[in-house]
């Protein structure tokens, strides 16, 4: 791949790939790459983070979701027409009394597309503390949950199952969660 950066993220788009990487520590770019054509610049996004690390996943509507692993954890929706919406920025200002999101060592896993929106998980790699945030399709926080487990939720299967990785020493267990009412709204956080 002849790109002006080291590719760090990729997701299938139509018959080719959307391949992204950092042009500068703040500037994330993605090119459309296919077997037939030269790479075409598809997206430039300047992050509020000075060390952005975006990952790409495919949403249910075939859009591409870009999630910044580091604070402020922007989640972008990228359509095949190159339209980019900033779905959310999980800065948690005023919402998290312990300022979890700003802790050193807290990262976001790639957003998991659901039928009713997205699930974003913040992981403190130095502990078992996690935040699970359920976002509406337009990026508003619907629910947030705190949990303590060496768990990463990495994908959805169908409409009612989540897949996660539980780490224990040198081994990891792949676990499947059957969800009851994952898209129901909750009156309050946690």
């Amino acid at each position, binding site marked *: 791949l002849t790109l002006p950066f080291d590719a760090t993220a990729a997701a299938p788009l139509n018959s080719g790939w959307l391949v992204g990487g950092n042009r500068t520590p703040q500037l994330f770019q993605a090119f459309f790459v296919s077997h037939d054509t030269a790479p075409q610049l598809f997206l430039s996004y300047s992050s509020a983070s000075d060390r952005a690390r975006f990952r*790409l996943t495919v949403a249910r509507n075939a859009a591409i979701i870009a999630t910044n692993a580091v604070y402020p954890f922007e989640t972008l929706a990228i359509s095949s027409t190159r339209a980019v919406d900033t779905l959310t920025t999980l800065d948690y200002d005023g919402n998290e009394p312990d300022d979890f999101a700003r802790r050193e060592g807290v990262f976001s896993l790639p957003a998991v*597309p659901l039928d009713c929106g997205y699930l974003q998980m913040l992981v403190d790699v130095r502990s078992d503390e996690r935040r699970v945030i359920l976002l509406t399709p337009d990026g508003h926080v619907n629910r947030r949950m705190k949990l303590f487990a060496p768990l990463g939720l990495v*994908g959805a299967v169908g409409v009612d199952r989540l897949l996660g990785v539980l*780490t224990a020493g040198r081994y990891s*267990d*792949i*676990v499947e969660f059957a*969800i009851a009412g994952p898209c129901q709204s909750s009156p309050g956080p946690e």
Partner: protein
Amino acid sequence: LLTLRHVGTIAVPGRGHILSLLIDREFAFVRADSADYRLTFDSRDWVRLQTTQQYEPIGIRFGADGRIELVDGKTQSIIVLYASGRVDSVS
């Protein structure tokens, strides 16, 4: 309400990572730290694809013809793996 079910166990020596993806209604994990690529489909069994190369996949998809296409962060190329064992690389 969550109901937990154990699907499988994988070794993660060192800081090897797992790349995850969703293809249709099936889910697969790829070990990026091994010459073996272990792919899981549904929850019934492992499907193993042997390779002789070590890749660092940053994106992957399955073709309808059974081929697996991945974007390799290590070689910065697109790798196409066929069930026959043939490997194509697009740099």
